[in-house]
Each structure stands twice: as structure tokens, then as C-alpha cells.
């Protein structure tokens, strides 16, 4: 029994470390998008709104029986106009998908809107290299999630988050691959670093770089400086241990693993105090912390850079 547990633990360790190399660069190669030279984004919110408004009537979808078409379109439009407000729900494991959505809505709102409408009307849709074809339990559950805060009244977000979690799988999802009601709070929805990077490369039109892993913190001489430099040239996502940032109990022993994805908005340092502004769960948060604490909480840094002419 012990040997079995040891073997399972070793496999997870190996997967965690080797599925997310400590440092890598990869080029982004994808068809079907171009950078807007004026804004540096793939498409604009205006283009997305025009597309949504051009849909005069959206018939109820037989694929998504509990998603009201008017509420769906309204939700998609609100996301496009106010990406900051997208909310992955109380107690869910949707934070990784939330961070991805926040970046996508800023970078390619038209791509997002088109994908959503296609997914709603045909029950499946393609984005990048991924053909997202949600399973039947997902289609039944979307629009029925409850007790998740404002996510309760956002059917399009339920459809989106559930579809992403259903389609993209990582080693954390090995033992729970098929959705049952309530799995959004469990390992079924968990996102490890390699899975996040895979989703980001698929949905976002950026060149992606990543430092760190699911278990070992990145070795950086100055974490603040590293983040600050990367932020000047693009977007930065941190994979952090939220158990010590946002304490939920007073237990002294806390697992040293990352649990939460946040999108860095601003970072500054005055003497020995770092001020970090980040996005997560439908809003921006400002937090002050010491360089040591910052180093302690970060397990991975994902930087996303626009390069003009990338296709």
C-alpha cells in the first residue's frame, strides 16, 4: 500500500515538474488573426459589440436547454464591454479559466463573441487548434449553477467555464474526468500550470514565456524586478499559493502548493514594500507585501508578449 502511494506521489511529482518546464519559450503559430497596429490587440470591443448587435434574434438552443438566449447574449455583451467584471463564482476551481477569460476579452473580444455564439447555436465551436465539443452533462448543467454569487445569473459564463473545464485536461483531472453536479468545486475543474499555458497558447494571440512549476518555485534573483520587466512589455499571470495570501483558517501547517491564478495589473516598490495590483474574481485588488512574502507565494510567472507581425 505504502509502495503504491509512494509510486502515485512520485508520478504526480514528475508530472508536475516535467509537464511545466522550469523555463521555456515557445513561438506562437496560428492562423486567422492579425494584430491591430493602433491598439496592439487582435480585435476591439467595438467590433464585438457590432457583431452581437447584428444578431437580431437568437433562437433557444436545443443543445443548451437551460440557457436563455436573451440572457446569454446580454451576458456576452457585458463581458465584452466590461471584461474586468467576469466572475468565476464563489468556491469554484475556475480561477485559471477566469484569468484566461480576462486576458482574452481584452485581446480578442470579437473572437470570444463569435466562439460563444457558435458554441451556443451549434453545440460545438473551434478556437485556435481546439475543437470544443462539450459533453452532455455540461450542456444540461449550464444555466443551472446556483450559490456561486453573480455567476448564478450569468448563463453564458457558466457555459463558457464549464466548457473549458470539460475540454482541457491536465494531470490534476486524472481521477475526475467526467462532470457530475458540483464538480466545479473539485479536482475536475483544477488547472495546473501546463494546462493553463496550453489554454493560453490556444486562445491568446501572444508569445508565451513561463518560469516556475506546480511544485518548485522559480529561482529568480529579484522576483519583483522580473515581474516588473515582463509587465512593461506585456501581460503577466502569477500562479500563487492563495492559502497564505487569503487565509481561510488558522492552521499553522499549510500545503506549499499553488492554488490560484491572478493577472498582474501593476507592481511598484518603495523601500522594502511592494505594492501589487492584480485582477481576480471580477475585480482588481491592491495588496502590499514584502519582497520575501512575494517570493514565497509565487510558484510560476507566465508572461505574454505581443509581437507585431505574429501570425
Amino acid at each position, binding site marked *: 500500500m505504502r509502495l503504491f502511494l509512494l509510486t502515485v506521489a512520485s508520478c504526480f511529482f514528475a508530472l508536475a515538474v516535467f509537464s511545466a518546464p522550469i523555463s521555456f519559450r515557445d513561438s506562437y503559430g496560428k492562423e486567422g488573426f492579425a494584430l491591430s497596429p493602433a491598439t496592439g490587440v487582435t480585435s476591439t470591443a467595438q467590433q464585438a459589440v457590432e457583431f452581437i448587435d447584428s444578431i437580431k434574434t437568437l433562437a433557444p438552443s436545443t443543445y443548451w436547454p437551460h440557457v436563455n438566449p436573451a440572457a446569454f447574449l446580454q451576458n456576452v455583451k457585458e463581458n465584452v464591454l466590461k471584461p474586468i467584471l467576469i466572475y468565476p463564482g*464563489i468556491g469554484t476551481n475556475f480561477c485559471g479559466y477566469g484569468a484566461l477569460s480576462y486576458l482574452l476579452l481584452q485581446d480578442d473580444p470579437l473572437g470570444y463573441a463569435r466562439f460563444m455564439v457558435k458554441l451556443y447555436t451549434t453545440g460545438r465551436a473551434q478556437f485556435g487548434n481546439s475543437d470544443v465539443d462539450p459533453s452532455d452533462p455540461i450542456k444540461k448543467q449550464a444555466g443551472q449553477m*446556483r450559490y456561486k454569487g453573480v455567476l448564478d*445569473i450569468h448563463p453564458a459564463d457558466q457555459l463558457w467555464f464549464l466548457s473549458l473545464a470539460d475540454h482541457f485536461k491536465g494531470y490534476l483531472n486524472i481521477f475526475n474526468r467526467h462532470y457530475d453536479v458540483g464538480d466545479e468545486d473539485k479536482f475536475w475543474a483544477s488547472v495546473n500550470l501546463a494546462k493553463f499555458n496550453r489554454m493560453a497558447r490556444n486562445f491568446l494571440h501572444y508569445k508565451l514565456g513561463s518560469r516556475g512549476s506546480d511544485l518548485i518555485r522559480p529561482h529568480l534573483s529579484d522576483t519583483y524586478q522580473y515581474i516588473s520587466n515582463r509587465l512593461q512589455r506585456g501581460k503577466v499571470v502569477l500562479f500563487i499559493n492563495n492559502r497564505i495570501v487569503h*487565509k481561510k*483558517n*488558522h*492552521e499553522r501547517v499549510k500545503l506549499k502548493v499553488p492554488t490560484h491564478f491572478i493577472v498582474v495589473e501593476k507592481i511598484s516598490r518603495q523601500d522594502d514594500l511592494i505594492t501589487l495590483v492584480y485582477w481576480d474574481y471580477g475585480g482588481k485588488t*491592491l495588496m502590499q507585501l514584502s519582497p520575501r512574502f512575494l517570493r514565497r507565494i509565487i510558484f510560476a510567472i507566465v508572461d505574454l508578449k505581443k509581437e507585431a507581425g505574429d501570425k
Partner: protein
Amino acid sequence: MTSKLLYYSVVVTVASLLFSCTPKIVATKFYEENEKVLDKIEITYKDLSEERSFAIAFTSKDFKTVSVEIYTDTLKYIYDFEVNEPRLADTLTAYNLNAPKVIGLIGMMQSIRSTWIKNLDYYVDGKKNEVVFLSIKPVAVKAPLSYQKYYILAYFNQQQQFDSKGRLLDKKQKRRLRKINGEVFSRINDKVCYAVSGNFR
């Protein structure tokens, strides 16, 4: 030898059963014994958060470090203070909070070992409602190897529906239990419910 083993296993089973059911009884009793202070904390918090939304958490076991979350239209600010630090009052004032009253609230929370207070949103028939969450870290003896438990009180603005076991129900589908912040709540009175949880928020 066999009878001794049997004796110890019976004792351990009875003890663990006792410990496992204690928190639920104690949570109601705790509310009854401290109703005045608890209600005063809730009313004070409600009044203050009408001016500016905020939340308070005691993040250290000794109740000396307080984490204050202040919500503005654009940002949520999180600051950690020692309870007696002058910076605390300065910061509260800077965000247009009534510093003496908030510090008084922090003192009340400290006196009763309340670890967290916050307004949470929940939705019924598509409409937004608010509930005040108040967590308490009980002093009761902790069962060996058990995880730390917190009593969580939920103060609703309206009367709630409960099943025959006193569990909070969803209004829309009256047979369905309502979960708030991942917990099923039980009745204390028509507007106040409690849950026992491993986390205070």
C-alpha cells in the same frame, strides 16, 4: 488483552461521537449566550458598510493581527495591521470610514473571538440579496486529530424557509437546500442561521 482493546475502542468511539456532534449544539448555545454582542456587531457593521463597503478578518491565532479589506468602485484594498497600530485609524480615515466606530467594531469582534465579518451576495429568482457573515473561533477544547472548526452566523434581511430538520432552503425550489459560501446553514431564528465549518471564510 482482547477485552482491554474492546474497552479502549468503545471509549474512543463514544468520545469521537461526542466531539463530532458538540459543535452544532454549542453553536446555537453560543449565539443564545452572546446574542446581544453578536447582534450589536452585525448592526454596527451594517451601518458602517452602508457608507463604504469593507470586511474585517483576524488572520492570526492570537487576535492581534487584523486584515482590513476596503472596497471602492475600482479597487479592493487589503491591508494588514496590528490591532493597536496608529496606521489603522489613519488608513480607515483615508478611505472615508468612521475610524473610531470601525475600531470599536474590531474591539467587539476581538472580545468575542470573531474572525471574520463581511457582506456576501446571493441571488434568488435572479435578484441580488445580501447576507452578513460573521465567523467565530470557539475556545472549546479541540478533539485530537480533528481540524479546527468555526461557527459561522448568517444574518439575513428577510425571513427564511427551513425544512423539518431546520436546514435553510432555497425559496425557488423549496425542497432544495441552499448553500452559501459552500455551506448548508441551520436555523437559529427566522433570520439568523449558523453553520460549522473548517474555514472562517
